[in-house]
Every structure is written in C-alpha cells, then in structure tokens.
C-alpha cells in the first residue's frame, strides 16, 4: 500500500460577482489530480507557475480546503480536519516552504522555531527539548550558536536548512517540499538538496518534491508528474519523462532546460523552436475546447500520458494487439 493516495483531488475557487455576489464561475486551480506516494521515495511534481502544484501540496497537507476528491492516509481521508486531528496527521506530514524568510516567524528565536512541532506533538521536558533542537541543528549542519538568534541573521541557505530541521523535528513520514530551493542560488541549492537527500537516507522519509526546475527534479526524484492548468498531463518514472516524453507540454518543458554546451548553441536553438512550433500547431488537439488536458492513458506500466482521444484509441489498439497488459 502506498504511503499516501491522492484521488481525483479538486480545489476550485469561486468567482463571485453580479447581483447578490453570486458565484458566477470557478477557478479550477486543481482539477482532478490522482497519484500515489510510496514510502521512502521522492515524488516530483513539476509544472509552470500557476499550474496548481502548490495548491495541490496545500490541499494534501490541509492548508487549503479540497473541493472534491480524497487524500487517503492510513485508511482515513485527511481532507477532513477531524481526521487530521485524530491521526496526528501533521506530526507525520510536514512541509518545507519556498520562501525561507517568511516561513520562519521573524519574532521567534531559532530554538522556538524548531521546537514548535516538538511542543505540539512530543511533550519533552526543557532539557530534552533543547538537546533535540541542538541535534537537529547539527543534522542540517548548523552550529549551536544559532540557538538564540533570529531568522533574519541567517543567509538564505541557512534559513532553508532551519526550515528542513523544523520539518524533520517530529520525525515525519512525508515532507512536502514546495519549491524548497528555487529562491536560492545554485551552489546553495546543491547544499540544501544534499542535506535533504542525506536526511531521507537516514530517516526513510518520503518527499513530495514540487519544482519547476527540471534539472533539480532529475537529481532528486524517481517518479515524476507533470502538471499544467490544474491537471496532470504526464506521469512516469524519471526515465519515462526524460527519455520518452509524449505530451507536447512535457516536450516543451524539457526543451526549455538551459544547455551549457555552447558548441551546439545553434542546434539547441533550432530544436527548441521546432518543439515550440509543434506545440503551437498541436495545442488544439492536445487540449479540449476549454483548454483542459485530457484524461490520462497508460502507454506503459509506469508511464501515463494525457493523450487526445484519437491518439489514445490508437494506443489502446496497439497495446491490445501487442498483448501488453495495461
């Protein structure tokens, strides 16, 4: 059984207007997202800004109310606040935020910041608590003198490590990392990511890793889901996505990865423009009239793509003739 199962999750925001402030329409921030996270793995959720990946994360952890769908954890639907309380859900599922500065209370010392989840879930005495905080600081590579300082006295990378330490404090099973390194420069990114990997190895934590940086995702994740306009357009293992992208959006996203090799600059540029041309041409077929992605179709046991109906039918016939069990 998976650690956490997200099933047809929807988060819609009403648009109010007209007379009496009626609901005239909905913004479909997340519209029917389904995926599972296994224990101990890193699941990547990738998409452009506004694609609904952060909203998905917030709905999973309970910061955002889900309009429909379920998030099953330990056999309970944790989209209901009551179930979350019963399970001590937030002890097992923690979050790392994108903006490390604003995610740490500027008026609290680091000791209090990291001890906050400890105080809520594990009632330790003062000495034990301080010891645990010091140990957590050591795990993320910070010295003891950080204990009584305030968040603004640290650099971005240090702050994000403090955020990691806080998330790890109660020894959670899943950490949702919402673009944890996108506000950091490259050298510090590597540092924070390596700490996250080290912690994963030591404690067997699963990550839901949200990012728009495909390079980082490749480094971190085994399974990846690509999201756009509130829906998942392609799901697969790292190899599926990077070596055999099938949705035009995924192809376009992959073509946008900057290339450092200057010798092939022209060739890359040409490739990019080609992909963009294909994207513009086929946009109408890959999205329905409302501009939404089609339902996912399995193209291999690990790989699903939101193909348009005609292509999907072709695939089904192919796989049937080949006798692949899909």
């Amino acid at each position, binding site marked *: 059984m998976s650690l956490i199962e997200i099933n047809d999750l929807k988060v819609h925001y009403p648009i109010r207007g007209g007379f009496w402030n009626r609901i005239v329409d909905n913004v479909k921030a997340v519209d029917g997202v389904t995926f599972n996270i296994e224990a101990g793995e890193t699941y990547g959720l990738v998409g452009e800004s506004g694609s609904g990946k952060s909203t998905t994360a917030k709905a999973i952890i309970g910061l955002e109310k889900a309009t429909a769908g379920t998030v099953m954890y330990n056999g309970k639907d944790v989209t209901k606040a009551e179930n979350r309380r019963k399970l001590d859900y937030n002890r097992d599922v923690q979050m790392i935020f994108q903006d490390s500065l604003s995610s740490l209370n500027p008026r*609290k010392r680091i000791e209090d910041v990291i001890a906050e989840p400890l105080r809520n879930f594990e009632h330790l005495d003062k000495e034990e608590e301080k010891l645990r905080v010091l140990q957590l600081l050591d795990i993320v590579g910070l010295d003891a003198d950080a204990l009584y300082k305030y968040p603004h006295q640290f650099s971005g990378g240090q702050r994000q490590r403090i955020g990691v330490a806080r998330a790890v404090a109660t020894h959670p099973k899943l950490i949702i990392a919402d673009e944890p390194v996108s506000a950091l420069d490259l050298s510090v990114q590597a540092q924070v990511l390596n700490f996250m990997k080290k912690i994963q190895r030591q404690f067997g934590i699963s990550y839901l890793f949200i990012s728009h940086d495909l390079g980082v995702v490749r480094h971190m994740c085994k399974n990846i889901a690509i999201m756009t306009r509130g829906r998942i357009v392609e799901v697969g293992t790292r190899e599926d996505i990077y070596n055999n992208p099938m949705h035009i959006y995924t192809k376009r996203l992959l073509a946008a990865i900057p290339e450092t090799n200057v010798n092939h600059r022209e060739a890359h540029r040409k490739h990019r423009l080609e992909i963009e041309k294909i994207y513009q041409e086929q946009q109408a077929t890959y999205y329905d009239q409302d501009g939404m992605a089609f339902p996912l179709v399995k193209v291999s046991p690990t790989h699903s793509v939101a193909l348009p109906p005609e292509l999907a039918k072709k695939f089904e016939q192919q796989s049937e003739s080949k006798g692949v069990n899909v």
Partner: protein
Amino acid sequence: MKRDIADATSISKEDLAKLTKEANEEATPSRMKIMWGEFKADKPALVSLFLLVFFILFVIIASEFIDVPKMMETNIMGYYNKPFSSDYWLGADAGGRSIAKELVVGSRNSISIAIGLTIISSTFGICWGLVSGYFGGMVDLAMQRVYDFMMIIPMLMTIIVIVTIIPHYNAITLTLILSIFYWMGTSRLIRSRTLAESQKDYVAASKTSGTSNFKIIFREIMPNISSLIIVDTTLSFAENIGVETGLSFLGFGLPMGTPSLGTLIANANDPENITQYWWTWLPAAIEIIILCLSISYIGQVMRRTTNAAQRRGQDQK
C-alpha cells in the same frame, strides 16, 4: 523514533551545557535593551520618559495626602487669590479652592481614567481585530458589521446621554462607559495588519506544525504586529487623556465635586477668567500639552525600537 535523530548526530547530553553557553554568548540583545539604547540616543524622549513617569507617580502619591472633600469646600476668603502665595501656590478659583491641589487630584483622576480606558479599549480592540482578521470569511463579516454599527453611533452624544441617565456614577463606571466607544479605531488598524500577516508562510508553517489557532493568533501573529500595538497604544493614551478632559470640559465627565483637568480648563469658559484670572486654567492647559508631547516623543522611540531601519541607538549587535 527518538533514537533516530540522536543517532544521526554526535551531540549528546554531555554537550548540552557547553553548547547552551556558546549559544548564549551569540544571542541577540533583548528588546528591552534595544529600547533603552534608543531612549539614550534620543535625549528629548529620555527627558519625556522621566517627566511622565515622575509626574504620574507624583500625582498619584501626592493626592493620597490631600483631603478631597475638604479641598473642594468653598472658602470665601480665598476668592480668586493670586498665585505664588504661601497658602495658594497656584492661586485659587472663584470658590477659593487651591488650584495647585485641584491640579494634583484632577491630574490623578484624568490620568487614571486615561490609563484605564487605554488598557480596556486597546485590549478589546486588539483581540477583536486579531480574531476578525485571522479567521476571515463569515467570522470577519459578522465582526465587522458589529464594528460598523458601533461606528455609526454618534459617540459623544451617546456618552452624554448615558452619563445623564445613570444616577450614580464614578470614575470606574465612566471609564467603562467610555471603553465601549473607543475600541473601534484600534480594532480596524489591527485587523488590517492581521489580514496581511495571517497570509504569511510562517502562519502556514505553524498550522502544519499542529499549533492551535488561539496560539497562532496570540503567540505568533501578535508579537509580529507588536510595533503597531505599542505605537497605537501610546498614542491612544495621549488621545484618551483628551477624551475625559473634553467631556469634563463640557460638564458631562466626572460627577460634580470631583476635580479633573477638564473642569479646570472649563474655567476658561468665562471671559473674565481668560483675561484676568489666568491661573485658574493655564496650569491645566500647559500640563495637558506637556503630557501629550511627552507621550508622542516616547511613542516615536517605541516605533524606532521596533523598526531596525530607523534606529539611532549605538549598540546594535
């Protein structure tokens, strides 16, 4: 579970004391220290602080030694006695009552009411604003309609009516009556900041850490808007001195026979007093000016303490 985190590091119980000491050496100075540094850097504010504290203590202690009923008795021999005499340091009014004594007791009354009013109305306003801004949605909607209702009531008229209807009232009931009408400004101010503050990530982080709403409001958000709270409270204290004074000036403040700064200033209603018997109203007027100036100086220092960019103090670590 506990073992896992302990296993991952080399830090154990033996290091705790040493590391705590290390951390203490690197600790940031506390807020009180910073505030004191700011006061030292701003001489007028320092003078104001001492003046205010000394004056408040003086009028509270000195008025204990004054027999108020006896003081308020009419003494025909002292009719508009000139100031700077041995019996009447600041002269006497039409009833032959010592202005100096009236000033001490009146200041005590006015300042006590202002302090009480500030504490009650600010506390209520802050709580109202915090809760309204934090929860938002229907809670906010309902609470803001109460606010709107209170706002449209003509404040001064209603207070005057209530004061005239109630047969027996004293300083405490007057403070309570005034408190009903003076929490709205604070609550609106606090609400607007809370709305912005509760959208920040650290609040989300607290929620995901399992902290209760009550704790988030008062332990997470409130310290972050403390700068606003301190400044607003200081300035509303200055304003509240004016509230009671103004009401007494109109004759609807404290009951008859109770001196206050307002009744002293009300002496200036008489044109003869303004021109000839200046000592009946001038000391009280000057006192109010000095008090309000001092408070606003202190308020400025408080604001600078909470805003690192404006600090003037030297020992910023």
